[in-house]
């Protein structure tokens, strides 16, 4: 390596400074947006979570009262909505991951019209969630819905789907499989990254399709599964629009998801302080769950080229 002379270093540092300035300028819109529209509101909501702010009133500091009210069980809905959301997460995350993984494998086959299939399966993801909810309300209608109609034609028992307390969460989880296009695309990219020679080697060693899947595809896909698991977990904890549009949190609060409960606290009862506290508890829960997944990841996520 050539060591630069004094002037060269000076010139170089001028270039670096110039580049730094340009870099900051380019990053400024994003950084400003983050600061103004994410960080500042977050900090404000953290502050408000210790106050009794309402839409029409002045806020006064109440310390931990909002949090105490939630955890003490005085609030009828806090533990209930946590339970509802946890059940939704437990049902929907494995379903979404397994379904989109399988779908990605199918879409990765070399068949004619591959890109058409890929488009078809991605399409629901770009449909606005309100439209999706309306479609599914029709599909799941107990009397006229297509789903029950199909079940009836096979003489299978029908269900009340989103209109009964004990099936609403399962129905919404089932419905969520439909919009996993983004996860599928990530899986598809991951699948295409698997070196072909590993499959060839498996064949040469006498491995069948199952061993290819079990010993090549799955291990090499673990980083992708890990990524999708994290994003899906976070997204599922924040489930809202289905409850808002399709069930109104019902029947009998059976689909009162945590974020819907937050929304109600903020915009039905206009208790902004308490709603902020609710939001921060969710933030901490999601952080904790994600951290947990990260922690377990050393055991099951395999990175090529080391680790």
């Amino acid at each position, binding site marked *: 390596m050539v060591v630069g002379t004094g002037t060269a270093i000076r010139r170089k540092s001028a270039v670096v400074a110039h580049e730094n300035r340009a870099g900051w300028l380019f990053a400024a819109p994003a950084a400003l947006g983050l600061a103004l529209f994410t960080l500042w509101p977050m900090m404000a909501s953290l502050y408000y979570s210790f106050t009794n702010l309402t839409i029409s009133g002045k806020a006064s500091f109440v310390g931990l009262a909002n949090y105490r009210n939630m955890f003490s069980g005085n609030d*009828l809905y806090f533990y209930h909505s946590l339970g509802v959301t946890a059940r939704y997460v437990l049902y929907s995350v494995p379903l979404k991951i397994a379904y989109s993984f399988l779908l990605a494998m199918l879409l990765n086959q070399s068949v004619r019209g591959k890109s058409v299939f890929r488009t078809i399966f991605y399409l629901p993801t770009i449909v606005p969630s309100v439209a999706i909810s309306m479609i599914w309300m029709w599909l799941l209608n107990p009397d006229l819905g297509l789903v029950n109609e199909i079940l009836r034609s096979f003489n299978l028992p029908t269900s009340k789907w989103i209109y009964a307390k004990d099936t609403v969460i399962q129905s919404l989880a089932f419905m969520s499989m439909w919009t996993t296009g983004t996860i599928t695309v990530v899986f598809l990219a991951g699948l295409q990254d698997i070196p072909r020679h590993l499959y060839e080697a498996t064949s040469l060693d006498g491995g069948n399709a199952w061993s290819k899947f079990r010993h090549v595809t799955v291990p090499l896909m673990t980083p992708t599964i890990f990524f999708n698991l994290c994003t899906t977990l976070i997204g599922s904890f924040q489930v809202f629009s289905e409850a808002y549009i399709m069930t109104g949190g019902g029947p009998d609060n059976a689909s009162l998801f945590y974020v819907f409960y937050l929304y109600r606290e903020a915009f039905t009862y206009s208790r902004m302080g308490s709603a902020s506290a609710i939001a921060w508890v969710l933030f901490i829960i999601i952080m904790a769950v994600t951290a947990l997944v990260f922690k377990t990841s050393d055991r099951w996520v395999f990175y090529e080229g080391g680790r």
Partner: protein
Amino acid sequence: MYNVDMFTEAGIELPPTKAEDAWTYDELLAIAQKLTKDRSGNDATSPNFDPENIQQFGIHYGLGWNCWYSLVLSNGGSYLSEDGTRFTLNEPEAVEAIQKIADLINVYHVSPSSAQATTLPSNSVSLQTRRVAMAINGSWTHADLAQAEELNWGVGVLPILKEYKSYFHGGSLVIFKSTSNLEASLKLHNWIINPANQLDLHRGLWIPQLASWYTDPEKIELWAKEGEPGRPVGFQDAVMRSTFEHSEPSPENCIVNFAEIDAIVSAALDNVWNGTMTAQQAMDEAAVKAEPFIAGWIY
């Protein structure tokens, strides 16, 4: 409100427009059964009636408090005890009324369940497309009905259990005690509540808040003239007078913590409307949950 043609074609007398002639629940039920039809054309009194394939509902009873509460009042029930210390929707009068509405859905199949109701369009369209023959809902629906030019519709009084009862349902105009512009606020308030300043809104969507607009014939003509698009024949008796003369305070505006209590009651009622609980069970549960929020009447 109801579809006149559906009544005349079925040879059924039109619903009464005077409170003193109001149908009892049983009369309403008998007529609703005749007007409920399955896809093969059987009405709800027929032994072959198929409640899973209903084409036309005799009645669409709204399931919000603003619809079911009038029947509770009519039966002598109430949300809270008179002194405002107790939740009383779990007492016999209220329970009976609520159960009777649920029975229209689950026992007699003449009114749509919440699931069935999601397949129905708005009241004005489902009356027009003959999905329902009668609808019990607020008079704001008349604004939509006024636009339904093809539809021959009419208004009748509510069904009763004992006495005729109704209420005016609307948002409250609030002036804060702490305001520094009391005079200006009052001026705005007085301007808003004077129907003369927004007559158009009072010809369908709203109804007046000032008593003189219900008694002074000249003022009545301005907003409730029968024969105008949102004002069918019989409107002045069936909607205007029946409400004005038999009005109780609306719970929304006079119960402390109504939003919280109503959330508890509506959630519990979901179980009654879908037939998984009796009105008594659901309201007993609601009473326990609502207890911490009971803080009396506002007036």
